């Protein structure tokens, strides 16, 4: 591998989903002309495009019909009437959804910016569903006390992603499609660029920049059943961690209540937002027992836990009893075709059920990672509890942790988080460049170590594939670090992951060629899974309480006395697992003090 080339940009973005592309677009608009975005898949293949149900913002276009309760009919807000919704309400719902672990200053920014960013998407060409008077249509979503999910049928993420990508092209952003980030270049506390592989040629390159942003997405691929794309292997968080950056709140992994049975493919929460029911094997709407007020529209952590409880107590459906039924039949044909056309197709294609006249088998599916690379409110990555910046390094979207979602994210807040903080990080990076930041020198050849590592992977002769190791990891994470956790299982998982890390050192790569080597990529991705999974488990083991998506059967209460704090995990210098420390949560004790969380 000799044709290594050094590439220089003012700004380099890794990941071309909503967060990364927003950041790049903003830089372009602000006059930073030299912006490069690298993505391991074509930008339009990014997983933001798979989001379905909506993006939250209190536009007050739609309201509940007075006196009809949290699941009653909706109506358009007549012109001239009082606003039906507010950012304050969105803020409270998000805080409560986060089980008070979200930082309230960041949440306030997100819910205020929400309104403006949805309009901006609209102005840039997003094709939202509409009311008859031409305003953007809104629907209900779990944990939100008002209908504020702004949507485009059930392909909202798709239209947002295409729109933002198109606008980034319009502003001259350069995309490196099918390039794979391999390492972060940090010297003397300053991020100077990245090492990346051109997948087509297999060549490693040094990419230097005055600012680097990771918008590399989530990592549901550490679990057997997941809604996430094959690409969602947590490369960004693993690379940052390897470079000495802490990871925050990694123990909080969201399981979405409605993944297609055995597949995990997402059936949008809009199914329940539009009025769908969840039924156990006796045909009971079991959510009555767990959330008497909100029922199926309780937040995801609570609904998934309730489903799993039904399943564990023998009231699941399907040959192995590990499923639940999603019932949309009463919505009627017209509404399903109009509001949920994509999920209808998915149900027909993957489980052979048309939701118009059949019960859809579903199960909880690993969906979203609340934790990630810690940042301040402008996407600046921080290195410790006091907020020391890693100069030149930014992050936004699912791979980052601002933290707005705390212990559990509400549906429709992820497209929002990625958009708002991607845009803000773009502003901060543009400012850094326009303020005259230097292109910092890089010593030696940063690709060297990575080249050796890859050479070693291609040459070693073990007879176990990386995929076998990944498979065992997923089984372990699902069994011991899933919806319900306890110390015994977590200790077992930690031991198992460390053993897998050792076995990986001998894992073989069958494809020895340089051109488009997806076998090698798969092995590198597996290494990343092994790296961050250990951090998830370590955090889950340490956190002896139950909060949001993190549920310890041996510590079933929330413990604000000891655990109302973020976890920070840093790689130990000797490589022996993560070192944990903690960071306080930003709470406005006057307005939003912690309360009992009930739905």
């Amino acid at each position, binding site marked *: 591998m000799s044709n290594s080339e050094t590439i220089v940009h003012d700004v380099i973005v890794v990941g071309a989903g909503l967060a990364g592309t927003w950041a790049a677009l903003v830089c372009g608009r602000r006059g930073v002309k030299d912006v490069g975005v690298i993505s391991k898949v*074509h930008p339009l293949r990014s997983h933001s495009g798979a989001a379905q149900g909506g993006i939250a913002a209190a536009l007050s276009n739609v309201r509940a019909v007075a006196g009809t309760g949290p699941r009653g009919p909706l109506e358009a807000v007549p012109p001239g009437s009082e606003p039906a919704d507010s950012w304050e309400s969105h803020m409270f719902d998000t805080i409560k959804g986060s089980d008070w672990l979200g930082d309230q200053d960041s949440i306030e920014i997100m819910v205020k910016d929400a309104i403006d960013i949805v309009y901006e998407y609209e102005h840039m060409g997003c094709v939202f569903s509409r009311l*008859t008077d031409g305003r953007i249509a809104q629907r209900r979503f779990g944990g939100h006390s008002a209908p504020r999910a702004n949507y485009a049928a059930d392909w909202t993420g798709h239209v947002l992603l295409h729109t933002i990508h198109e606008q980034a092209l319009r502003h001259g952003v350069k995309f490196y499609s099918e390039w794979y980030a391999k390492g972060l270049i940090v010297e003397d506390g300053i991020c100077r660029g990245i090492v990346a592989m051109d997948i087509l040629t297999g060549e490693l390159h040094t990419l230097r920049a005055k600012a680097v942003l990771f918008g590399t997405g989530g990592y549901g691929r550490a679990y057997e059943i997941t809604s996430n794309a094959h690409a969602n292997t947590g490369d960004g968080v693993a690379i940052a961690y390897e470079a000495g950056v802490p990871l925050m709140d990694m123990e909080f992994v969201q399981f979405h209540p409605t993944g297609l049975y055995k597949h995990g493919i997402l059936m949008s929460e809009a199914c329940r937002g539009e009025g769908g029911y969840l039924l156990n094997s006796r045909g009971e709407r079991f959510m009555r027992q767990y959330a008497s007020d909100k029922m199926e529209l309780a937040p995801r952590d609570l609904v998934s836990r309730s489903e799993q409880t039904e399943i564990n107590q023998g009231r699941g459906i399907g040959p192995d009893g590990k499923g639940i039924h999603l019932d949309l039949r009463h919505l009627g044909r017209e509404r399903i075709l109009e509001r949920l056309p994509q999920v209808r197709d998915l149900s027909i294609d993957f489980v052979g059920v048309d939701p118009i006249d059949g019960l859809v088998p579903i199960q909880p599916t690993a969906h979203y990672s609340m934790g990630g690379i810690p940042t301040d409110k402008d996407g600046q990555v921080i290195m410790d509890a006091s907020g020391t910046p890693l100069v030149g390094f930014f992050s936004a979207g699912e791979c980052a942790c601002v933290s707005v979602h705390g212990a559990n994210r509400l549906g429709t807040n992820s497209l929002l988080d990625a958009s708002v903080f991607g845009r803000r990080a773009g502003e901060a990076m543009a400012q850094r460049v326009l303020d005259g930041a230097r292109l910092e020198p890089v010593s030696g050849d940063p690709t060297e170590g990575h080249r050796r590592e890859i050479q070693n992977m291609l040459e070693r002769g073990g007879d176990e594939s990386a995929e076998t190791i990944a498979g065992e990891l997923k089984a372990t994470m699902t069994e011991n670090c899933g919806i319900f956790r306890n110390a015994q299982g977590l200790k077992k998982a930690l031991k198992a992951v460390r053993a897998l890390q050792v076995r990986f050192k001998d894992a073989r790569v069958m494809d020895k060629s340089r051109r488009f080597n997806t*076998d090698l990529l798969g092995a590198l991705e597996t290494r990343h899974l092994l790296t961050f999974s250990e951090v998830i488990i370590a955090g889950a083991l340490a956190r002896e309480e139950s909060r949001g998506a993190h549920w310890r059967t041996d510590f079933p209460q929330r413990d604000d006395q000891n655990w109302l704090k973020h976890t920070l995990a840093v790689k130990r210098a000797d490589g022996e697992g993560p070192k944990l420390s903690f960071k306080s949560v930003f709470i406005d004790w006057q307005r939003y003090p912690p309360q009992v969380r009930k739905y």
Partner: protein
Amino acid sequence: MASPVRSKSMATVRVKRFNPDSDAKPYMQEFQVPNLQGTTLLDALHRIKHEQDGSLTFRRSCRHAICGSCAMNVNGRNILVCKTPLQGQLDRKGVVTIKPLPYLPIIKDLVVDRSTFWNEYLRVKPWLVPPATSPEREFRMSPEEVAALHNAETCIMCGACYSACQVVALNKKYIGPHALLKSFLRVLDPRDTIPGERLAEVGTDEGVFRCHTIFNCIDACPKNLNPTQAIETLRRLAQKRTAFEAARVERQRTIAGPLAAEPTPGAEGGVRHVP
């Protein structure tokens, strides 16, 4: 490599292989995989890659028909392998044949070079060019105006139509069904300010007048979209471009304000999306 034994519980997957760095020319290779209920073609390819030959190369990501990565040619038809069951593609001997999308250069095995595809996408300026000033709130669009865009907005840019198109195969200058569909999305959008310029770009012998209405694109589209119909619409509009531009200018005079139709009380404002 391939086992000659063919049983009902096993399926034979014939795959076209080619690494330009090491192979003189493409060749077919057979693999046996278990034919389990619920197995998709993508599952079968994964199984081969993970258990038999790690060098088998293909693109995939979301595995539920929204990212557009995995369009391939299966038994002569362009489809997304992620959403297609293996069982339905097997012939009487239990064999399925998977090749890369036709008419595009092969990068490796089932991975093709879509450069021309993306260049045509760029050529039609896929982005909206909105009015110079934005309202404080949203531009107003009627549910009918939104419904008219439905045929194009869910395009996932998988390339199945493009590589099924006979005209593309014969004429590399043709814009292609995917990019014309994108152009349709922009031209029909009441917020777009340059429909005339767009119609001039696509209303040529390299654009909508090159389409021979063979309908291959419709057959190939995994999202059940109809590029041919979009092309027909663009043809019609290209011929009355000036009037269409004028109508757009007129429409945009009121686009920041409420539409005449008042919301229907109790009916969620009558949201309608699908035509």
